[in-house]
């Protein structure tokens, strides 16, 4: 085709349209853009085939999308901050894994999947979409609820889990078919690179600060983007996945005082290239292959709901949250999205069974829609369940009129 941009532009118009639909429906763009991608060529309902150069371009935009998604993930957590809240988070995170990772591993083992597929599917199943979860909580005005602290703590735990899990998975993807010893070496190598980089960056905060103290927005943007692409390339050259490079750079920059500025700058890029990534991922999946994965995806959704609720009610005991809060907690964390697709994409790149990508697409589309919906419905569900399960509303204690304690007031004034 002579028109390089016409086809690409037309496809991107569909991405934009997905965005419009998503904001009208008040959903995340992730499930909508995936559905639109599934319906479009080359494998969708029309026989039209885009030129190879167009597909390559979409692919490249998508790869940039993965870089920006992981860069933004890395920016979200500063090591210093994490260490401060590690104790409570780890306990809650381990309870979450105990229910959900166990269920995911057992289920995929029962399906007779290979070890690599099981490992990847477990990540796809257990990682919530922190973006959808945070947005749901803000939309529903639940940010002040007691359970929200637990939810956002869990999201942070999952982010860390993702950062530790991604090198393992990508090493497996890269050294696929190799001996277990080679595998162990490449996993160890990936971790060593991360640890070295993060350690150096913690030690050289002053140098980093002076490098990033750039007043001009234009120059700052150029430096950040160039560093991002270069880090991705460097980690590619070191034979650890490009995504890890982006993650490391994000973690390094999270330690500097420019963190907020970079987040601000990167979010539009993440949103655009990320949407292109989800779209391109769905574009390559044929509708026929989806049929074979329906049952698996539906069972996985049921397991996720059960595991999340079990976690919610366990945490309500641990953290002293009401039954209503436990229900909110369990239902809200079921949303899945961006990171499940990033993981599935790694599986595709590694040539794992294509059932994995059809499964993950269905699983994410279902839970990216169902998760926020269930969170919204959690109140009516509570009203129905509460009398049946004997969660009697605690009779409001008769509140004696509280006299203003004069001595307390004096205290406050200091």
């Amino acid at each position, binding site marked *: 085709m002579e028109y390089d941009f016409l086809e690409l532009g037309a496809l991107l118009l569909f991405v934009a349209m997905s965005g419009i639909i998503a904001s009208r429906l008040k959903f995340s763009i992730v499930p909508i853009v995936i559905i639109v991608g599934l319906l479009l060529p080359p494998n969708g309902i029309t026989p039209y085939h885009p030129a190879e150069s167009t597909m390559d371009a979409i692919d490249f935009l998508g790869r940039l999308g993965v870089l920006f998604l992981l860069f933004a993930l890395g920016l*979200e*957590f500063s090591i210093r*901050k994490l260490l401060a*809240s590690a104790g409570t988070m780890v306990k809650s995170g381990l309870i979450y894994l105990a229910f959900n990772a166990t269920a995911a591993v057992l289920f995929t083992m029962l399906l007779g999947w290979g070890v690599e597929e099981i490992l990847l599917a477990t990540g796809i199943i257990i990682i919530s979409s*922190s973006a959808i*979860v*945070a947005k749901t*909580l*803000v939309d529903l*005005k*639940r*940010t*002040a*609820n*007691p359970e*929200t*602290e637990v939810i*956002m*703590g869990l*999201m*942070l735990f999952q982010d860390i889990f993702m950062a530790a899990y991604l090198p393992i998975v990508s090493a497996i993807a890269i050294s696929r078919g190799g001996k277990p010893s080679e595998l162990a070496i490449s996993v160890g190598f990936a971790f060593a690179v991360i640890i070295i980089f993060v350690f150096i960056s913690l030690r050289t905060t002053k140098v980093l600060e002076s490098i990033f103290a750039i007043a001009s927005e234009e120059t700052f943007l150029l430096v950040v983007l160039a560093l991002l692409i270069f880090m991705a390339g460097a980690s590619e050259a070191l034979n650890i996945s490009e995504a890890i490079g982006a993650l490391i750079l994000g973690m390094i920059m999270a330690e500097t005082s420019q963190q907020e500025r970079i987040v601000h700058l990167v979010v539009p890029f993440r949103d655009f290239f990320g949407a292109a990534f989800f779209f391109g991922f769905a574009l390559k999946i044929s509708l026929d292959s989806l049929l074979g994965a329906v049952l698996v995806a539906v069972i996985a959704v049921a397991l996720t709901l059960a595991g999340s609720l079990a976690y919610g009610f366990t945490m309500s005991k641990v953290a002293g949250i*009401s*039954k*209503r809060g436990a229900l909110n907690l369990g239902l809200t964390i079921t949303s899945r999205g961006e990171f499940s697709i990033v993981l599935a994409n790694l599986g595709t790149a590694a040539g794992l069974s294509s059932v994995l990508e059809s499964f993950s697409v269905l699983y994410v589309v279902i839970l990216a829609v169902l998760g926020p919906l269930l969170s919204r419905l959690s109140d009516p569900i509570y009203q129905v369940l509460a009398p049946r399960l004997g969660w009697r*509303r*605690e009779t*409001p*204690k008769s*509140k004696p009129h*509280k006299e*203003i*304690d004069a001595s*307390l*007031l004096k205290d*406050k004034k*200091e």
Partner: protein
Amino acid sequence: MDFIKETDLPGIGRKFSASPASGGKIIIIVHDDGVREIYRYDDSDADSEVEHIVSFDDSEARKIAGILGGLAYTPKALDNARVDLKGLAIDWYKLTAPAPFIGSSIGALGIRKNIGVSIIGIIRHDGGSLVNPGPEAVLQDGDTVVMAGTREQINAFHAGARGNPQPAS
């Protein structure tokens, strides 16, 4: 017990729970995008719902903060010069020539960056006032500058305005 309890809500913002001596519980959520939400919560009833009262955008929130802090109208009973809240303070300083800050804009002085205090209002010498001035606002002779920050930062501002700057921290 502390009057105000702070918790991080990673990915959303920061949560402040206040339990006034007069009873009940107020929760303020400061979102990362600048929105402030105020909720009411009855902590004597474990099953009660958290009730959303009001949301403010950033500039509205600053104006409300000024009223609560006694800047717009000082309650007659409290005639103390500065408001102190656990290390955080609101204070004001009258600039008189030849204070080095006179004639420069807030942005050019880099007050938030260099000293750390936020200027939340300026009362002009002619009695006019500027709530939540932007970086372009120029400080003039006779202005009363209203600022918020830690005690150290406020002291640093005073020192700077007197012409003997010292580091903020």
